[in-house]
């Protein structure tokens, strides 16, 4: 979290510049930029007021969630696969923003760099190699559109229902440890002591609700954890990446003709 004093200084400077640009005398573009600056300054200033900060964070979450979901919907409904890929990039941006909002800075950057920077560009390359037009007959039709849409809608509905009944139940004193309220899980024995709430779902010290790491130490903590506790999975994933690289090269490489003995 940046210090409030710095935010206030930034907001003051931005507001001054924005107001100066907005005053009549400049071109339309300059005045529009000034209006943007002034708006940003207003938002930054308002975030310092008590009680407004969480409200702003909620608004930001709603905005990012809407961007993510709308982009995903547009991705599967676009006719041209090229537009689909671009919309998928928008979904990635929204997800990265949500990661940032939930305090996973490294993951946000990694999503942008690895997904949007590498995977999406590879998709675009393959699209360019094949059919970028979206005029083909199979891009203009779907398999059983109603049936699959119903399947997805039912899945979303069931998941939401699980959320509503499984998590939002009366939290009561059992959730005081910070763990998961087990009301919706049928396997939870009713006489479970309050301290064991974390159970299977919280492998690290049970029911110890540490505050999530914040600020510049979050990434350092992530790296420490990654290379101490999870070092063997890291090596395994490295081997897997190498195997995938070799496999892709073998699959797509030139066909070797068997030599006559």
């Amino acid at each position: 979290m940046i210090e409030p004093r710095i935010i206030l200084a930034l907001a003051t400077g931005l507001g001054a510049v924005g107001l100066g640009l907005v005053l009549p005398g400049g071109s339309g573009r300059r005045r529009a930029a000034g209006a943007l600056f002034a708006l940003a300054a207003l938002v930054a200033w308002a975030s310092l007021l008590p009680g407004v900060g969480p409200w702003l964070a909620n608004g930001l979450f709603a905005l990012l969630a809407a961007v993510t979901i709308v982009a995903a919907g547009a991705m599967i409904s676009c006719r041209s696969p090229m537009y689909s890929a671009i919309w998928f990039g928008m979904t990635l941006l929204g997800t990265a923003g949500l990661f940032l909002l939930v305090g996973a800075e490294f993951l946000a950057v990694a999503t942008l760099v690895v997904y949007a920077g590498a995977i999406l560009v590879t998709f675009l390359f393959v699209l360019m190699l094949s059919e970028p037009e979206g005029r083909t007959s199979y891009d203009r039709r779907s398999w059983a559109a109603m049936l699959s849409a119903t399947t997805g809608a039912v899945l979303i509905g069931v998941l939401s229902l699980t959320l509503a009944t499984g998590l939002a139940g009366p939290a009561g004193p059992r959730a005081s440890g910070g763990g998961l309220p087990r009301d919706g899980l049928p396997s939870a024995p009713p006489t479970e002591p309050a301290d064991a709430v974390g159970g299977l779902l919280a492998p690290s010290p049970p029911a110890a609700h540490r505050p999530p790491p914040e600020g510049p130490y979050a990434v350092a903590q992530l790296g420490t954890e990654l290379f101490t506790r999870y070092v063997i999975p890291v090596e395994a994933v490295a081997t897997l990446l190498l195997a995938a690289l070799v496999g892709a090269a073998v699959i797509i490489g030139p066909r070797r003709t068997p030599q006559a003995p």
Partner: protein
Amino acid sequence: MTNDLAALHSYLAVAAVLVGIGLVGFLSRRNMIVMFLSAETMLQGVSLSLVAWGRFHGDLGGQILVLFIIALAAAEAAIALALVVTLFARRGSLDIAAWQDLRESDQPPFEEEDLPPEPSDEPAAWPHLAPAGIEPASIDEKEHYRPKV
């Protein structure tokens, strides 16, 4: 605490919607690349839910799992795109229905329905333009000109 729970709720809801949309895309689209993009969308939804759970529990395990998911997605994309390029070279099409002879033996073959009419770039009627650069027929009829105001 209730605040944390509410945040977890909203993140999980977004994750559920992402997974559902990805499922619909994977089931209904016929372009192989769009199918893979839909699968990646489902992975994004799962990643979001993992990060939200990790935040709720104050545990970094969720974020680390998502890191592994990203690495696996990279490996998957490499293999899948190599396969897609090979399949495209064999059949000349990204249509997944081009490979329907791999279906189970008792399944009926997929039959093409009638296509909706192709939207064409050309407009139904071109605008009529008067030929330009032709000398007017009679220059003498000055009286038909509109008088200057």
